[in-house]
């Protein structure tokens, strides 16, 4: 196929010409995304590299990065499994209350994060409904990395479900039928046929859930307990430093976080592209 961009559109478009729309796009992106981000860079740029390292290498900051990354990663992993399951149930089965369940998936999106945080904290607190049951087993959720992971899994769920749903809906059922007639057991059909077809969407969904988890603040602070070196996430470190008027340090941590996010995004998009190159848009 010839690239569509090279061809001049014959039909009049709904929006006026390419120049104008592109102009607005760039302007808007600059105002909303690029300028604030570069401001962060610039305000941290005057610090020498040694100072940067000094700030980032403090045990507290390092621990927070370790925690943020691992908790987000684990949460994204949990969401990958359960998000897939939920998306599967919602697209493949017709049952009473399906619409309601479908709407419930959006709740972590729609809820103010603070509300979610308070709800989770009361639930998992040592005296809370679930905390009380878990405490005798020696499991403490609130004020531990476990609680943070739970909160992050909560906010990330809709991303995975919503990216998988349309792809699952469009998945040709004949693929499964074909695999079945070829002799595949249901588990093989899932592993060899369905999962590979869903993989690009699953990766996207997980990446979205992961980035959201990395930056999540509201729902985590209540349940985290914010114990330095134990349950303090990066956004909280930034917040604390700001409150203590250590603007430069806060910015350095923020920029580091930003770079990390960029790196993640590039990695995911790269993987995505590689997958697509392999079997989708190459014609």
């Amino acid at each position: 196929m010839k690239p569509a961009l090279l061809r001049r559109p014959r039909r009049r478009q709904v929006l006026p010409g390419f120049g104008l729309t592109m102009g607005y796009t760039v302007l808007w992106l600059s105002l909303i995304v690029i300028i604030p981000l570069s401001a962060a860079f610039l305000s941290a740029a005057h610090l020498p590299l040694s100072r940067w390292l000094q700030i980032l290498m403090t045990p507290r900051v390092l621990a927070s990065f370790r925690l943020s990354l691992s908790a987000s990663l684990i949460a994204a992993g949990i969401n990958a499994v359960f998000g897939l399951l939920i998306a599967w149930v919602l697209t493949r089965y017709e049952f009473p209350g399906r619409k309601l369940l479908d709407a419930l998936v959006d709740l972590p999106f729609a809820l103010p994060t603070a509300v979610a945080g308070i709800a989770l904290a009361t639930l998992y607190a040592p005296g809370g409904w679930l905390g009380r049951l878990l405490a005798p087993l020696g499991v403490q959720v609130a004020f531990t990395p476990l609680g943070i992971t739970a909160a992050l899994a909560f906010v990330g769920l809709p991303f995975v479900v919503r990216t998988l749903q349309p792809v699952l809906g469009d998945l040709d059922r004949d693929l499964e039928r074909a695999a079945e007639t070829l002799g595949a057991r249901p588990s093989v059909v899932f592993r060899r046929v369905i999962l590979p077809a869903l993989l690009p969407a699953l990766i996207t969904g997980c990446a979205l859930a992961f980035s959201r988890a990395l930056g999540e603040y509201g729902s985590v602070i209540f349940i985290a307990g914010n114990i330095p070196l134990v349950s303090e996430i990066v956004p909280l470190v930034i917040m604390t430093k700001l409150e203590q008027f250590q603007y430069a340090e806060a910015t350095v941590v923020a920029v580091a976080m930003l770079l990390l996010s960029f790196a993640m995004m590039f990695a995911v998009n790269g993987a995505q592209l590689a997958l697509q190159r392999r079997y989708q848009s190459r014609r």
Partner: protein
Amino acid sequence: MSIRIEQVSKLYQGVPVVNDVTIEIQTGEFFVLLGPSGSGKSTLLRSLAGLTNIDHGRISLHGRDVTELPARRRGVGMVFQHYALFRHMTVAQNIEFALRIRRVGAAQRRRRRVELLQLVALEGYDERYPSQLSGGQQQRVAVARALAHEPAVLLLDEPFGALDAKIRVELRETVRAVQRRIGMTTILVTHDQEEAFALADRLGVMQMGRLLETGTPEQLYRYPATRFVARFLGAANLFLGEVSRQGLHLGAATLAPERAAGVTPAGSEAVLVVRPEDIEVAADATELGAHNFASGTVEALTFAGHQQHVSVRLDELSRIEPATANAASAQRVTVDALRSAAEQMAVPLQPGARVTLGVRRVHALPTPISSFNLMTCSDNEAAQLERSPLLAQLVSSMQARVIRRGEQLEAGICVLPLDELAPTAIAAAVEHGARRVLCIPAGAGVPQRMLVHAGEAVRRADLLALVSSVMRHLPIEATAVTLQHPQASRSEVVETQRTLLDTRAELRGSHGLDLRSDRFLGDLPAWLGSVVAQPETALLVLGMNPTRDLAARLNSEMPMLFRSGGHVDLLLAFGRAA
């Protein structure tokens, strides 16, 4: 016997989408299931593959009963309309999928793959991804993949439906060649008549879940049994004609039937099929080589490459009546003819030209239902009958004509309202020669089941001809019921059982249809009572003797049927008067 499908039914929300289908397919045969969309052909194919479970019946492949087996253990290869290739796998991986699952060694897999790619003429495409192939190539890969595990049968579900015309023909030839070469028993589902003719050793036409007819393409084209098949397989002119000892009468022409008309006895009305290519057009009767049957005016000429369609409006004097419902206006009967290039040269035509028509060949449908003959006192009553769900359904699916004419009761099937006066009306109709009477109560819904009771000494062949005609056109389950005395002796029980089996065998043998069988303990009134007591509407088919005291007998033996508010449709078949 490679594939044996026995009385397979599949219900969807209580309605059979596959209705008691029985087929036997020989090893190495290419069988095509042909039918319009929604006829149940794809569902039948899927149930063969084990992708849909069935509600009734048995399926066996190569003598192995697979009814309960999941698809993966049936050993079938299936090809889908939209290829269903695994897009994340290369051509090689797709083809080797079935072998990899079976843990076949790499060298052996490679050998088989090379062999299969050669078979479908795609050598060297091993490392491509499906998205890099054209539709036709993808479908070739799908065929190769379906054959990889050496299945017992190959099932193709509208495999050429998504391809454009030229590639379709090309791929069709490939599939045919591959099938011949490896001698694979194959079933293909399609709605394309041309495709069916090109591929099939034998084909079965499905409509409304029923397998209407099976046979070689030529058999079905030349000797269809139903109006539907006559028109679905190529074009056909359908006329009402007459059968006599001399032959088949169509207008002024009398032709010897190629096949014994069978169930249509001499002196009765029949549905005649005339293929457009069997009609000769000439300016003058003396120039005709074929039997002259009518004259008319050329209405339209259509160019169709090497052939020419001619549409001729018949003169009223020709007295030709159409046999189909859509051509209801008897005043304007048109005949379609198809002329070869040579014929066009010999007799050039212009629209508006006066022509004489000859007919070379005529086929009489073996259905006793040539038309529906309404027997009512008023037009109002007739209109009500015509609106009844049962008659409406029969007329639309049979494409048969409804006639209000009163005389000539032997023709077709008499229809009258079922009420307290019905016994007298039935007796009167039978006295005037009616052989088949359909009684429909006011306000009855669409029947949900059909019950057949041979009853008295009606010729079984006659009864089955009637039953099969109705069965083919109603999407409901049909059951043959025999009555058995509660204290019947052992030999009587055996006898009853044998009669049922014989009936089924005969229906299958001469009409290719199958029905359920059931035994009722008790006599006729008790059985009719139990049928009437059921809440669902039933169509009751009974055989009876046309005795003198018919009205009295109807009133005394089956009074429950004639009470008002009934919901049982009654179809009576009468034997020959003594």
